C-alpha cells in the first residue's frame, strides 16, 4: 500500500508546492500589472470626473467633462472620424500589402534574405527620421512627389496640406511601415503544411484556388492576430500628427490620441484629457470586441473547434 501511495502523495505535495511557487513568482508581474496598469486606469477614470488642471486642487464635477466632450467640444467629432478613417485605411492597406509581400518573400527568389531585411527596415528606423523624410516627399510646393508630377506634366497634389488627402497620405506611410506584420506573416506562411498544396496540385487546383482554399484558411489565426494588433496600434495613432501635420489641415488629422495629448500637455486640462482617454478606450474596446465576436466564423483551427 505504502509503495503505491507514496508516489501519489509525493506528486500532490509536489503539485501544491509548485502551485505556491508559481503564485509567488506571479506576484511581481501581478504587482506590476496592478500598480502600472489597473491602478492608473482607475486613477484616470477618477481624474476624468474632475476639473483638474494641475494647478489648483481638483474639484469633483461628475460627468461634466463627458457631457462637454460630446456636446460642445469643437474637435471630438472630426477627431473620431479621422481616427477611424485612418485606422480603416491603414489596417486594410497594411494587411493586404504585408500579406502580398510576405507571399513574395516566401518564394524561392534570389537575394531573399536581403529583400526580407529591406522590407523590415522601415519598421526599425527612428520615427522622427522617417517623418522628416516623408515630409520632403509630400511637400506641397517643391516636394519630390510634386516634382515627379510636374515632370510628367500633371497638376500638383497637395498631399498632407490638403484636408482630403492628408489621411490617405499618412496611411500610406503607415502601410510602408508595416514590416513587423510581414515578418509574422512570413513565419505563418512557412508553417502552412506543404502536403496540402501538393495534394491540391495533384487534384488539379491552380495557384489562386490553392491560395483561397489552403493558404488563407491555414493563415487565418495569424491574420486574426495581425489584424488585432494592427487595429489597436492604428486606432492609437499619434506620431504622424505630432511629427507632420499638427492635426491639420483643419481637424483632418486631429487623431484622438493627439487630441488627448493637446488637452493634457498643451492646454493642461488633465481631467478633460482623461475623459477623452476613456472615449478612446471605449472605441478600442468596441472594435476589439467586434473582431473577437466575428473571429470564430472565419478562423480555421487546425485542432478543430474547441471553444
Amino acid at each position: 500500500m505504502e509503495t503505491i501511495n507514496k508516489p501519489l502523495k509525493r506528486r500532490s505535495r509536489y503539485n501544491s508546492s509548485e502551485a505556491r511557487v508559481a503564485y509567488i513568482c506571479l506576484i511581481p508581474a501581478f504587482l506590476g500589472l496592478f500598480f502600472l496598469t489597473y491602478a492608473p486606469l482607475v486613477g484616470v477614470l477618477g481624474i476624468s470626473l474632475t476639473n483638474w488642471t494641475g494647478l489648483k486642487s481638483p474639484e469633483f464635477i461628475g460627468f461634466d467633462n463627458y457631457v462637454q466632450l460630446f456636446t460642445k467640444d469643437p474637435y471630438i467629432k472630426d477627431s473620431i472620424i479621422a481616427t477611424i478613417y485612418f485606422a480603416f485605411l491603414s489596417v486594410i492597406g497594411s494587411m493586404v500589402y504585408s500579406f502580398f509581400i510576405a507571399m513574395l518573400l516566401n518564394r524561392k527568389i534570389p537575394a531573399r534574405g536581403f529583400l526580407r531585411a529591406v522590407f523590415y527596415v522601415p519598421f526599425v528606423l527612428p520615427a522622427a527620421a522617417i517623418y522628416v523624410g516623408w515630409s520632403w516627399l509630400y511637400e506641397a510646393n517643391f516636394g519630390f512627389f510634386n516634382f515627379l508630377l510636374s515632370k510628367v506634366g500633371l497638376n500638383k497634389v497637395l498631399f498632407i496640406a490638403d484636408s482630403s488627402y492628408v489621411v490617405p497620405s499618412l496611411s500610406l506611410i503607415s502601410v510602408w511601415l508595416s514590416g513587423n506584420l510581414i515578418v509574422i506573416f512570413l513565419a505563418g506562411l512557412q508553417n502552412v503544411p506543404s502536403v496540402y498544396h501538393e495534394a491540391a496540385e495533384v487534384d488539379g487546383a491552380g495557384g489562386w484556388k490553392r491560395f483561397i482554399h489552403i493558404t488563407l484558411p491555414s493563415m487565418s489565426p495569424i491574420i486574426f492576430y495581425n489584424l488585432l494588433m494592427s487595429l489597436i496600434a492604428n486606432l492609437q495613432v499619434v506620431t504622424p500628427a505630432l511629427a507632420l501635420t499638427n492635426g491639420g489641415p483643419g481637424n483632418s488629422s486631429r487623431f484622438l490620441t493627439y487630441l488627448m495629448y493637446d488637452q493634457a500637455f498643451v492646454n493642461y486640462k488633465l481631467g478633460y484629457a482623461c475623459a477623452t482617454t476613456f472615449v478612446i478606450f471605449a472605441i478600442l474596446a468596441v472594435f476589439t470586441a467586434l473582431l473577437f465576436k466575428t473571429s470564430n466564423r472565419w478562423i480555421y483551427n487546425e485542432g478543430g473547434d474547441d471553444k
Partner: protein
Amino acid sequence: MNTGKKIGAGLLSAALVLGVVGCGNNEDKETNTTSKGTDTTTNSPDTSSSTTEKVKITYSMWGSAEEGSVTQKVADKFNASQDKIEVEVVSIPWESYMTKLNTQATGGQLPDTGMLKEDGVIQWSSEGMLNDVSAMYEGSDSKPLDSLAYKYQGKTVAYAAANEILLLYYNKDMFDKAGVAYPPSVLDKAWTWDEFVAAAKKLTNDKNGKHPGDDGFDANGIVQYGASVENLPWQLETWTLSNGGGFYSADGTDVRVGEDASIEAIQKVADLYLKDHVAPLSVGQTDDGIQRTIIAGTVAMATNGAWNVGTSLNTAKDEGLKYGVAVLPYMKDKVTLNTGGANVVFSQTKHPKEAMEWLKWYNSEENNWGLISSGIWMPTLQKWYTDEALTHKWVDNPNFPPYEEYKSAVVDYAQSSAARPASWFFTNYTTDFNTLLGSVLGDVWTGKTTAKDAITKNLDALKAAHTGNK
C-alpha cells in the same frame, strides 16, 4: 528549498517596487541642480565674511544641463555680489518644462521664481499662482518697454525675459536679380499691402521666367516665390490688427475675429497663394517658416520673428545667404507684434522681494549677452533702444545685418507705436483660441472654403474657446 524560493520571490517583488520608486527618483534628477559644483568655489570665501544666513531662492529655466550651468555661473556672480540672497538655478528640458512646473505647483513645490511660457502667464495669474511684480523697477534708471509687461486685471504680473518682434526678411540677391527696390527698413516708408503684393509678383518666376499676370504664366510651375506671410495663428493677429480688426478687443474681453476687417485681412494672406500666386502654400503645420522660405532659397520675402537672426539666419549668412531686414507692410495701420517668454515670481514663494531683486539683476542685458549678441533675444530695457551708444554695443557686430538697416527695421520699429503686445500679454486662453482658429482656417489656405465662411461658421466655438470653454 521552499523558503529559499519565497525569499527569491520576495526579493523580486521588492526589486520591482524599488524599481518603481527608483523611476520617481530619476525623474527628479532630470531637473539639474547645477549649483552644487560651483557652490564651493564661489561661496567659501564668502561664508567667512558674512555671518548672517543668506536667503536661498531657486530659479527655474528651460534648457539643457549645460545651459543651466551657464546660467548658474551668472547667478554665482550675483551670489558673490551681495550677502543677502543665494540663487540656485534649476534647468528643465523645454519639452517637459510646463508639465514639470504643473506637477510642482500641485505639490506646492514650485521654485521661487522662473521662466514661464508666454501663453501660460495669464492662466497662471488667473489661478492665483503668480505675484504682482509692478514694484520691480521702482526707482530704476530704465524700465522694460511698456509692451513687454504681462498684465492681469491691471496689475503687472511679469516682464518678458526677452523681446521679439515680427519682421520682413528678404533675399537681397533675388531683389538685385529682378531689379526690384529692397523693402523699406524705415517705418515711415513702409509698403502698403498692394505695394508688397506688386513687388512679390515681380519676384515670382515660373520655369519660363514669367511672372503672375503675364500671358502664359504657369502657376503650377513656379520655381521662385515672391513672398510668404507666416500664417501661424498668433502671427496672423498682426494682419487683422493692421486691417483695423483684431482677434480681441483692446482689453482682451471680446472676440473680434468675426468682424469683416479681421476676416478680410486673413483672406488677403490666403490670397497670396490662391489668387496672387506669389506665395508657396503653407497650412500652418510646422513652425519653421524662415527655414522653409528664405534659407531654402525658394522665396524672396518672408515674415517672421526677430529671433530668426540668431537661430538660423546667422548660419545661412555664413554659407553665403545675403539677407536683409525690413518693416512689415501694412493694410490700414502699421502693426507689428512683440512677444517674449516671461520671468515670473511664483506666489508660493516665501521670499518675493528677494526673488524680484534677483530677476531685476538677472534681467539686465549684460547677463544674457550671449543670446542678445547672437541675435536670438532683443533687450527688454528701454535704454538699449533709446541710447545710441548702447544700441551700437548691441547691434554693431557681424551677427547682425548692417547696423543702419537693423537699427531702423528692428530697434526703432520695436519702440514705435506700431509695436503692440501679442495677445497673451493680457488675454487668457490664447492657446485654446489659436489652436481652434488654426484648425478652422485649415481649408482656407487651400481655397476649399473662404475665411468668411470658415470663421462665421465657427464663431461661437471661437468665442467659447476664448473663455476656456467654460
